[in-house]
Structures are given as C-alpha cells and as structure tokens.
C-alpha cells in the first residue's frame, strides 16, 4: 500500500502504543496539529485508524486498527 514517510512514521508510532491521545501523537511524531489531522483523515479513510472525540483536540484519541497493524507488519 502506498503511504508517504510521515504517514508511515505515524503508523509506526501507533503500532508501538496502539492508542494515543492526538496531542501526544503530535509530540512523539513531531508533526504539527494540522498536518497530523490531514494524515489521520487519510488513514481513517483507509480504515487503518479509528478517531474518537474528533470535535475536541484535547480529547481526541487515535487508535490503530487491525488493517493499520497489518500494513506495518
């Protein structure tokens, strides 16, 4: 599956932790909010991650789905 390096970095981090608050993910991957939001949108569209509490960045949680995990294996 075609994924750019930054998206792979996000997936790799999620593969390590499985579930992370959005803000923690920005810090660990060293990516800005807007860019990460776009990446997460794409990954969600590919059914690789699940996004909870999208309306509130302080409570937003990203969880790696089985498909995302398979891509990283």
């Amino acid at each position, binding site marked *: 599956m075609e994924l750019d390096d930054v998206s792979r970095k996000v997936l790799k981090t999620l593969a390590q*932790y*499985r*579930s*992370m608050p959005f*803000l923690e993910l920005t*810090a660990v991957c060293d990516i800005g909010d807007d860019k990460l939001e776009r990446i997460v949108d794409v990954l969600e569209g590919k059914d690789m991650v699940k996004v909870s509490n999208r309306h509130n960045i*302080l409570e937003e949680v990203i969880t790696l789905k089985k498909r995302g995990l398979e891509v990283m294996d």
Partner: protein
Amino acid sequence: MDWKYLLAIPSFLVGLLAGFQGIHQRYDEDPYNAALTLPGILYLLTRGIVPAAVYVTLYSSNLMPNPLWLWSLVCGTAGTELILRTKIFIKEDRSAEGAPHELMYGPFDLLRWYQNLFLESVMKHLPIYWGRWAVKVVGEILKDKKMTFNEMCEKIKSNLHFFERKPKLHQAINQEADKFLAQYDMVVKENQMTQERDEKLRHTLCYRILRQGIGESGLRLLLS
C-alpha cells in the same frame, strides 16, 4: 463433607458469566484481554462469589428447595438479579424544571458503582484503550487545576523529589518537562503564545508523563 455444597459452582459460573457480559459490553474491542487484567479477574471472581455465597447461605440454612442444581442456577441469575434490582424509596425530589420525581436507590446502584470501580481501572492495562484512559484522567485532573503551563512545570519540578527513589522515572519526567519548557520558551519568544496553545502544552506534557507509568495518583501528586 456435604457434596451438595459443590452445587455452588453453577451459581459461581453463572455470576462469572454475567460479569463477563459487563466486561464485553464495555471493552468490545478486546474483551478477553480485558477480563485477564488484574482488575478484570478480581471483578469476575467477586461477581461469581456473590451468587455462590447466596447459594451456600441458603443451603446451610435449609432454605433451599429441590432440585438443588436448578436453584443453584437461579441463585446465579434470577435470584441475585432480583435482589440487585430492588430499589428503595429515599425521598421525593424535584428536577431543575420543578417536576417531582422519586429518588430511589438500591443494590443495583451499588453494583454499578462497584462495576465502574473495577472496569474503569481495566482501561489503563489495555494498550488499545490507553488513549481513552489518559484523556479521561488528564481531563479530570486539569479541570480542577487553574494554572498556566509555566506554573504547571514549576509545580512538577518542585514535586519531583517525590520520585527520587525511582531515578529512571525521575529523569524521564524531568526530561519531558525540560523538552516542553524549551518549546514553550520558543513560542513565547516568537510572541505566539495563546491560551489555546498553553492548554495544549499542558495536556500533552501530562500525557507524556502518564506514559512513563506514573499512574493517575502519581500525576496528581506531581501537580499537587
């Protein structure tokens, strides 16, 4: 030994299954691992022990009719459920709109509280639910603490001595705080600090500190 006491086992198993249903409802993405965490096991055991104890008590008091195996199952399902769902009238209360309603509590409220006590703590043991747990914990802690990011860092630094006996944890927290302080200083220098950014930094630092395995009580201690 009276072997009929062993008929408490079906009661125990049915209670255990009812407990597992509660775990499955809440942790539908990973119910088996949730059940195998320490709080999950403790919860399931206690959910099994209660109906088993009801059976043993009734049998030893000669209050258990025949067939015993059937009543053992009843203890595990209907009997215990019936007791748990009993509600006791406390008082008549009024809602915000002034409409009267009856304030009633019963063993089921106690069960719900008890279930929450155990099942909430399952969350932090499951990587797939860790994010939700962290968001909940940090949200609750920071809701009561009215402080800026800078004040929060000062507090963390001054309370770090609580973790001197755990040098690795002490160092990891200190490093995280320094890293975020450097970011904060940069943003302030660029004159771009806003209340929203400050709030994001506070939350993010708390998530990173929680990730070190400090636990909710540890984070509360650091911010006290």
